[in-house]
């Protein structure tokens, strides 16, 4: 039973990685950039929820809503101010370096506003969870809700992309910006929508992450951010189901190797598996050819 328990915990952590990875993969697929500040949006979302609940005493649902809107605005503004002016620049390195700069900027602002000390995050989920097999298997409410939200996000996003005009425009821009423009699609607006969705998902991921690991510092976004990036590459960057599978796989591997092999080595194992996957299939599990044509 304990194996099943660890597996479920792995899926829960994996769902958080998956939600973050979805943001990474969408922005990469559509804007053709690695947004290394994506992890720090998680941190900002967590601080917003923390402030709204612990300091302003708001209801968790309202706090989450404010965090999603706040992160959405933050994502759109950073794209507009920091990334868009560099679009079409001769080197994609310029955007990458800018993204790293934005990442540090957000961390330093959080440091300035909230200080370096660890803040205790009150979980937004109060449900105790369920007990199965005469108490043999206990699943926490946070775990169940995290997995459920992960699935909801995946199916919601798939429906959005395949059933709405904006979603189809995103696929068109991902494949060929010029041809999309000729169809009447506003590429800048489509990229802004992508950032809006990715960033508000990051806020959701932040809340779920902090409900499982209830502490906040200005740096909490970096590690899940990097792992979600790994998950996105592992699943095939640019692919939405790939990000989901990559995230879940990574979460399960991390928890299982932490439990059965070594808690110190678990991160190294995660990266070792990534390297093996990329050696065998350079485009990741579900990645197709790399769409580089602009």
């Amino acid at each position, binding site marked *: 039973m304990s194996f099943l328990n660890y597996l479920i915990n792995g899926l829960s952590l994996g769902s958080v990685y998956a939600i973050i990875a979805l943001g990474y993969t969408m922005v990469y697929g559509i804007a053709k950039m690695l947004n290394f500040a994506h992890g720090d949006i998680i941190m900002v979302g967590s601080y917003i929820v923390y402030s709204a609940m612990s300091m302003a005493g708001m209801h968790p649902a309202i706090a989450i809503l404010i965090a999603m809107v706040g992160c959405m605005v933050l994502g759109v503004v950073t794209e507009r101010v920091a990334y868009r002016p560099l679009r079409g620049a001769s080197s994609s390195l310029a955007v990458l370096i800018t993204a790293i700069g934005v990442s540090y900027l957000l961390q330093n602002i959080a440091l300035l506003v909230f200080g370096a000390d660890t803040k205790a995050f009150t979980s937004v989920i109060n449900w105790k969870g369920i007990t199965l097999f005469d108490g043999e298997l206990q699943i926490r409410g946070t775990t169940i809700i995290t997995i459920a939200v992960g699935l909801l996000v995946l199916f919601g996003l798939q429906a959005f992309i395949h059933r709405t005009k904006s979603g*189809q425009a995103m696929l068109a821009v991902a494949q060929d910006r010029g*041809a999309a423009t000729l169809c*009447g699609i506003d590429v800048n607006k489509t990229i802004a929508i992508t950032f809006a969705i990715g960033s508000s998902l990051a806020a959701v991921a932040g809340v779920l992450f902090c409900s499982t690991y209830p502490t906040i510092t200005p740096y909490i976004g970096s590690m899940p951010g990097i792992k979600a990036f790994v998950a996105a590459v592992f699943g095939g960057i640019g692919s939405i189901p790939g990000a989901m599978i990559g995230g879940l796989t990574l979460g399960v591997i991390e928890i299982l190797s932490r439990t059965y092999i070594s808690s110190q080595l678990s991160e190294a194992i995660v990266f070792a598996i990534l390297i093996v996957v990329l050696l065998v299939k350079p485009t990741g599990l579900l990645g197709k050819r790399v769409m580089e044509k602009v």
Partner: protein
Amino acid sequence: MRILEVNDLTVYYGVIRALKGISFHVEEGEIVALIGANGAGKTTTLHTVSGLIPMTSGSISFDGKDLTKVQGHRLAGLGMAHVPEGRRVFSDMTVLQNLKLGAYSRKNKAETAETLEMVYTRFPRLKERRNQVAGTLSGGEQQMLAIGRALMSRPRLVLMDEPSMGLSPIFVNEIFDIIGTMKADGVTVLLVEQNAKKALSVADRAYILETGSIALSGDAKELMDNEQIRKAYLGE
């Protein structure tokens, strides 16, 4: 009425001057061919008209409207469509999804459905293959899809960039037949071609582009008889 008017258009790629002040126009209802060797600047001309690349100086007006400040994605809604060089269909998407994207600028769903039926009538093969992924179509079918996608916006002017490139002779004939029927339907066409013979046979007028400048222009039939053209472009 002049549906497209280009005046003294100059375009640079960095320090390279690709277009050296060209002027030309297209009357409503005409087929105008823009002919020239590889690298003459034909694609650059069409890309600039469509707003995909910025002009350095000069002016472009469409339907009497100055396009200098108009963003490229607005042109589809204004009635201009562009069948790009190399087709550039969305290869991971189905034929139907590609066609629907062609109607992206249109709001009225009933009208779009009607246009889709018209495109299907003109290209029965696209209807047969509507759920097939575009990347798996043959080159000729992809070209038809690219033309169908452009027609989905119900354009008044269509820019076509080497639609016959890389196609088998049967498909080449089919593509030129389609261009003829477009004219019959009242669509104006600016046709870029390296296949000068075919282009001149379907066009009303033509411009000859040589390394970024217009070298010659005139009635298509007259150009076909021009000694210089026959030698340089018709391989005689």
